[in-house]
């Protein structure tokens, strides 16, 4: 029954039998003298190692997705198709994504260039050549203007059917279960839970945008991995009249795209959550699973009063998000349980907004993230309010004292000022390399004032 696992690299099958499963695709490429893909950071933050990965969605359509090869463990590759910068040109004939960069002086030192080229390549296929297409690629030389202009010129070129477009039209079978050493890629939920029973010390790994950093840095993370990125049951999005259930394995890019317009909280947050390369791999489940106090999605769940669905050896559990987070990176989820989905109630008559403040406004980690949901009556009396934050405590938290202060009161300048002062006092955040505690406290209050000024004026 066993054929060796393999993957396609620039149209050629590569055997994975000897691959070290926790080695990154980037390091593997380097070991095979494929030097076009560059290592700028090894942390998934610079985009120099961007490659295109083919993914087939539930509707059967295939897409190229830009991903950071430094965060992609070889163990996750069986059955996948990868295009690198070496695969683009036909001999001396450059791909249009390369041609516009040459003509527009888009390269100086050239070290970030292959990553930009791959982002642009993907952009030509998914029709987005805006700044968002290249936000995850750092360049230290050009100041970006010529690259932005190259992207614009590329967007203006007529669409020509080429071998890359034709390749996407090929029918593809769904990815099946596969294993590379101790890196397991189950195809079903049952299989995943059974694997966990057999390998209790194995760790769940979704898009590997968080654990991939540790692996890339050569740290020992776990003796075995159970990957969740090819389990069909985790890939669904169910849009109901009252709520939307999002599979834990749905990428943030898909959420951003497929739920656009349904949740202002997501629309406000996802463009700034991270760069495309990360959003193409990161999942809602992974974000909650890592339980980071500065995760940008937990405040949204808290503000909407959502719930988390877990599956384990003893069946399924549905837990409200309130009370889900217990302590720093500790949640109610047991080690052998898996997040399978989250449910977001649809914000009927609520006014909602998310804010994210970071040192840099694109592709950065929050100093403070805030998600607000409020319902007022005709006299501006507060009927319902949920004020949720990341970055102000050891866990994503609601400002319950300030919520209590607001309930039943008329929302005017005086109340906003009282709420602001209350929010400043409600949390005891840390000072760290991102910001001092005082600034975080000030933001906790001021972002609410900003929310009222912008959405409730």
């Amino acid at each position: 029954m066993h054929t060796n696992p393999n993957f396609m690299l620039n149209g050629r099958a590569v055997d994975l039998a000897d691959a070290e499963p926790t080695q990154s695709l980037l390091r593997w490429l380097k070991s095979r003298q494929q030097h076009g893909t560059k290592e700028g950071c090894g942390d998934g933050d610079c985009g120099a190692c961007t490659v295109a990965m083919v993914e087939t969605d539930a509707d059967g359509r295939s897409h190229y997705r830009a991903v950071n090869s430094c965060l992609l463990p070889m163990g996750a590759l069986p059955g996948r198709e990868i295009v690198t910068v070496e695969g683009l040109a036909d001999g001396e004939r450059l791909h249009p994504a390369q041609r516009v960069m040459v003509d527009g002086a888009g390269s100086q030192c050239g070290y970030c260039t292959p990553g930009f080229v791959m982002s642009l390549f993907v952009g030509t296929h998914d029709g987005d050549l805006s700044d968002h297409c290249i936000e995850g690629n750092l360049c230290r030389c050009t100041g970006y203007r010529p690259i932005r202009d190259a992207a614009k010129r590329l967007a203006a070129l007529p669409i020509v059917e080429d071998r890359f477009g034709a390749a996407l039209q090929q029918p593809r079978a769904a990815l099946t279960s596969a294993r590379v050493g101790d890196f397991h890629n189950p195809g079903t939920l049952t299989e995943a839970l059974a694997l966990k029973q057999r390998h209790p010390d194995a760790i769940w790994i979704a898009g590997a945008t968080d654990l991939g950093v540790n692996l890339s840095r050569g740290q020992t993370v776990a003796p075995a991995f159970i990957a969740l990125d090819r389990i069909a049951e985790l890939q669904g999005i169910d849009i109901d009249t009252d709520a939307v259930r999002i599979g834990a394995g749905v990428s943030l890019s898909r959420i951003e795209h497929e739920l656009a317009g349904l949740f202002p909280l997501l629309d406000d947050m996802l463009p700034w959550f991270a760069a495309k390369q990360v959003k193409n791999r990161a999942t809602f489940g992974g974000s909650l699973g890592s339980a980071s106090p500065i995760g940008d999605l937990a405040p949204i769940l808290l503000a909407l009063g959502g719930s988390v669905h877990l599956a384990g050896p003893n069946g399924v559990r549905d837990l409200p998000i309130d009370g889900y987070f217990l302590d720093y990176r500790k949640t109610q989820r047991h080690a052998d349980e898996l997040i399978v989905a989250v449910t977001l109630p649809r914000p009927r008559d609520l006014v909602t907004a998310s804010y994210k403040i970071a040192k840099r406004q694109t592709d950065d980690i929050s100093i403070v993230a805030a998600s607000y949901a409020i319902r007022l009556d005709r006299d501006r009396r507060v009927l319902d309010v949920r004020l949720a934050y990341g970055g102000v405590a050891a866990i994503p938290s609601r400002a319950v004292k300030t919520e209590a202060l607001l309930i039943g009161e008329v929302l005017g300048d005086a109340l906003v000022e009282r709420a602001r002062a209350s929010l400043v006092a409600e949390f005891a955040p840390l000072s760290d390399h991102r910001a001092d505690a005082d600034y975080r406290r000030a933001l906790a209050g001021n972002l609410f004032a900003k929310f009222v000024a912008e959405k409730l004026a």
Partner: protein
Amino acid sequence: MSKPTTHESAVGHVTGRAVYVDEQHLPQGLLSLYPVQAPHAHARILAIDATTAAAMPGVVAVLTAADIPGVNNTGPIVHDEPVMPADLVSYHGQAVAWVVAEDEALAMAAATAVRVDYEPLPPILDVHAALATNTFHLPPAKVARGEVGAGLANAPHRLHGELMIGGQDHFYLETQACWAQVDGEGIVQVTSSTQHPSETQHMVAHVLGIASNRVVCRCLRMGGGFGGKETQANPFAAAVALAAWKTGRPARVKLHRALDMQLTGKRHPFYARFEVGFDDAGLIHAARIELVADGGWSVDLSPPVLMRAMVHVDNAYFIPHIEVIGRIAKTNLASNTAFRGFGGPQGMVVGEEIVDRVARFLGLPVDQVRERNFYRESETPDRNQTHYGQPVVDNELPTLWAQLRARSDYDARRRDIDAFNRLHAQKKRGLAITPVKFGISFNKTEYNQAGALVHVYTDGSVQLNHGGTEMGQGLHTKMLAVAARTLGVSAARIRIMPTSTDKVPNTSATAASSGSDLNGHAVKAACETLIARMVPVAAASLGGDAGEVRFEHDRVFLCDRPDTSLAFEDVVRATYNARISLSATGYYRTPGLSWDPKLGRGHPFYYYAFGAAVCEVEVCGLTGVQRLLRADLLHDVGDSIAELIDRGQIEGGFVQGLGWLTSEELRWNAQGRLLTDAPSTYKIPTVGDVPEDFRVDLYRRAKSPSTNVIFHSKGVGEPPFMLAIAAREAIRDAVAAFGDARVVELAAPSTPEAIYNAIVKVRGA
């Protein structure tokens, strides 16, 4: 002349075929290095025990100070920089030993098994602690003119202030990388991502205790340098060469990003104190300025960095009575080093701070006070000399400034912004125009020389060697243009070679914006020698006078008979047949330079580069978040050799400066460990930080210059970096609109947090 539109390696860049140091066809048996890092910022090393590590799989050697056969030092000016310390740890993360193993993972694993016993000592972790304890490198430096005491005393108004300016990581996309092998003849062959191959060569020889003629250092191209590989490539080259020397096998290192950020020095943080005397019109009479650069643990290039700051505090302004005192704080941090602008940016930020304080004190528009204090060559020739005694030769700034004011629609936008600010309580816009005057030449006079070596082969192909290095700035592209123009051939005929110390010896660092000025003249001289040798041969073949021979478009002809021509390669062949050498060196030294570092006087710069920028920002009063809405840059590159390359330097320099002054913040913990050692925590600009409305123009001067720079171009590597000061001043302008303060203190970098804190202060004033 030919103006190549793209970088000579552009196709290599976009296809991934351009090769960098750690990507060459590497030799069999290549070993990798990984450092053993000290967990203290300051400590005595009591013992190093590598027995466990040495026995681990794949480990070939563990190198410590005791293994160094030559001199344990890579300090470029002062010999205070051990490759590995024998007894004293001077900064957190310092490499106290290097593990050499079959691959990087094995070396990394073994590095954690090296046992080192330390006795921690109290560290000094910033400028203030150094000031409090009088801990400095070298004696203070001074540049002064006039009677500063009397000038201050007699001025109608006086104010004083202080300012802290943050450092900056280079964040070249390619981290420090090097590999080395000892060849069959015992020559140490080093390939390094270095801006200064000659110095890397000398340092390797010095550390191995051998003569320089036994070391060859090559540099193909760098994935960015920005000054960070001017001296700081040397310790890694030394460690790698030592590994090759000790083991007899080739060895490599390419630092992981976090290691690179922890181990290498950055732009110097500066602390400044100033006192300034001025009159009702805002004219500055006198200034006393004290600059303290955070040098880090060793001297490195700190003295010339400090000096460049001291001779750029004036920026574009004449200050009759002035005294600038500079000190270098000795701290237990990585050793700060060259970074684009080389102290100039810090000096100019201080200068602009002073002008802004004067203007706000008087309630005058800042742009007006700037203009009033300008050096002006024609209107006020008596106010056109710098405080170090050099006149501002070919001073184009007042004209350039007036052009930018008009083009950017400054005055109308000023009115619109004031109106906008009256209507909005929680968001304010700011506008600023700032000048740049930047001296071109190495402050160290002896560095202002260069060499080239040009071979013409009998098939008519040309091989070009020069002493400069390519780090993305387009030097090779410009050198190809110079050679093609001088030889009268197409650039396609010329192959530029990796920089190598066995081709051109004793080169200077590619730095100080002078790479194309110096190497361009050397290349031109070599090509002119070759032409002079070929001319008589061509004249004889064409049957005319030598004076009438022309080399153009790959053809050789007499100027009065252009229809009869010879192919370039035919003239080459005939020259060879006539037994005339087709290989020539070229050499250049910048004329007229002098500098007395003791007196702080002289003529250190061949000329000045000028520029100006207008920036408009919007600032949120609730969060401190700012957005750059529009930037207009006008910069003087002389007669450009390659316009696209020069525009790239202007735009790229500006955005890098923008990062320094806004989002790039270095933070250390209380033990001196760098906390911002990855792009997840250290934020250089992304495309999202670049304004959609970004207008960049090259200044066209009306007068011909009094200097003879290569083809009348101007150095452009560093000066545009300082155009970003307009963004800082625009942010300050927006912050000021939140209140009615006479002083707007704004930290550098102006992160959202810093801006928010400044707004709180302004509102409270």
